[in-house]
């Protein structure tokens, strides 16, 4: 069942259309990746979903109710975290979480703040002013703030940016657990494609304000036919390069290793041709296309699925 439904959402800034009639749903317990190059319209979309930017047109419905007409009731159950906004930097971590907890009228406020502080490992930072925190600590505080009201829907704009890999991994695990335990639905933006593949059930690609793809990460990656074939060439590197150039294969060289973009079904034929030319290699690896390849291709060519 869709708990967030967006229909024909549009935002124009004078002559520039930042978001152009996009429509999509978010299901209960779903983690949806919102991807696209810088300036594609992701953050504009998230701002409209939070009610801090007025759409030029279209509908936003949470839990079957219009955001415009039921803002208060809806936002009680929604929260967000973004690397692009700050909590007041002259307040301590404790003060920030306290005033936010009053804003959402948390029933057992002290207990909830203590629990959130534990989860995001903020205990030793409680009495520090926000301006004294490192980028990673700030990200953890923003995430802690976003969970304070037991949200049913979370909008996370690059939630793991600036985090150490182990903390980022812990946060991803935490998000997946929250989804499993409480059916929290999440809209997630990130520039880390591996992370998106790991966390998201579905991915929407936005470019120039339009949705150009909406599918699972696996299906999107599979739609790219080109694999990366890596060979460490023992004898015949020059012949390999010539062959690639003559047959329009893209390649990258790294010492004696060459990475060639080849369609998966053409790999046997490609290898046999090299053998016929007397090329010998002692290492071979084939990397299947990933979401990152899809992202690169789609942003490069503006391809529409």
């Amino acid at each position, binding site marked *: 069942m869709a708990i967030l439904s967006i229909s024909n959402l549009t935002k124009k800034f004078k002559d520039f259309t930042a978001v152009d009639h996009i429509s999509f749903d978010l299901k209960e317990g779903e983690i949806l990746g919102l991807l696209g190059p810088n300036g594609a319209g992701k953050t504009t979309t998230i701002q409209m979903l939070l009610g*801090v930017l007025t759409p030029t047109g279209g509908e936003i419905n949470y839990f079957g109710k219009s955001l415009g007409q039921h803002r208060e009731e809806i936002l009680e159950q929604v929260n967000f975290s973004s690397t692009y906004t700050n909590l007041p930097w002259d*307040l301590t971590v404790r003060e920030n979480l306290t005033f936010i907890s009053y804003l959402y009228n948390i029933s057992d406020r002290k207990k909830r703040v203590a629990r959130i502080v534990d989860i995001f490992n903020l205990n030793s930072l409680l009495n520090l002013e926000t301006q004294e925190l490192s980028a990673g600590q700030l990200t953890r505080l923003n995430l802690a703030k976003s969970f304070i009201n037991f949200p049913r829907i979370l909008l996370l704009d690059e939630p793991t940016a600036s985090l150490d890999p182990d903390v980022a991994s812990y946060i991803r695990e935490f998000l997946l657990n929250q989804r499993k335990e409480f059916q929290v639905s999440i809209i997630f933006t990130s520039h880390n494609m591996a992370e998106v593949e790991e966390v998201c059930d579905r991915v929407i690609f936005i470019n120039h304000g339009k949705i150009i793809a909406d599918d699972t990460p696996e299906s999107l990656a599979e739609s790219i036919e080109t694999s990366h074939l890596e060979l460490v060439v023992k004898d015949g590197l020059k012949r390999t390069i010539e062959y690639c150039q003559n047959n329009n294969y893209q390649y990258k060289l790294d010492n004696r290793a060459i990475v060639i973009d080849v369609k998966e079904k053409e790999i046997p034929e490609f290898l046999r041709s090299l053998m016929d030319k007397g090329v010998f290699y002692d290492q071979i690896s084939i990397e299947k296309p990933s979401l990152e390849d899809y992202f690169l291709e789609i942003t490069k060519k503006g391809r529409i699925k």
Partner: protein
Amino acid sequence: MKIHRIYAVSLRFWYYFRHSFDRMTDAFYWPTMDLLLWGLTSTYFRQYIPNNANVVTMIVTGILLYIILWRGQYEITVNLLGDLWNRNLINIFASPLKFWEWITSFMVIGIIKAILSIAFASGVAYLLYKVNFFMYGFNLIPFLILLIMSGWWIGFFVAGVILRFGTKVQTLAWAFVAIFSPFIAVYYPLSVLPAWAQKVASFIPMSYIFEGAREVLYKGSLDYRKLWISLFLNIMYLIISLIFLRKSFDKVLEKGLVKVY
């Protein structure tokens, strides 16, 4: 309107006050300096003004009443700037907080800080010059209410301008209220103003309060008609300034709260 949300935003402003040396200075240091400077100056002049023992009281109570006006507007404009500097508007408006709850919290914190400042400054005035601010008795209540109302509409108007044009016009947060100073006759009677300025003053609600306070001091009575005119003007300007602020806020929502700083 929900009390817990008004409390939340007021609490955030209160924390800001506690942490900010600037705010502490504004609340306690400058009022003390004004009282010292103007109080001593008027004490000196008293020697040369025959039959006017009230001159020190007039100047000192003028300063105290002006603190109320200044506090009312200052809490609105500077707290708004604090949220802009901190880029905190998104955090609070992506929550269920309503625009009118936000406005109310400005008023609440303005009243609390005005009480704090005036309690402190009236204590200083008594200690330094034996001027008892509470000599106005019950008249003090309408004086304080009307002056803080004036502070609010000035503050809301400036807040609307800051929301529209961003922090590049932030100096208005401190400076705008001063534009009224020559016309509201804080330290002198309105009669010293030229005729055109008296006409301007008649449209400014604060002028009736300061004039009324002087009447109490010199005549021992108060023309309550002045208070009603002041109340009427204050209500009118408060409504206009709130409409302007709301429209500015809606304008900002069209650009996105993230873009305002």
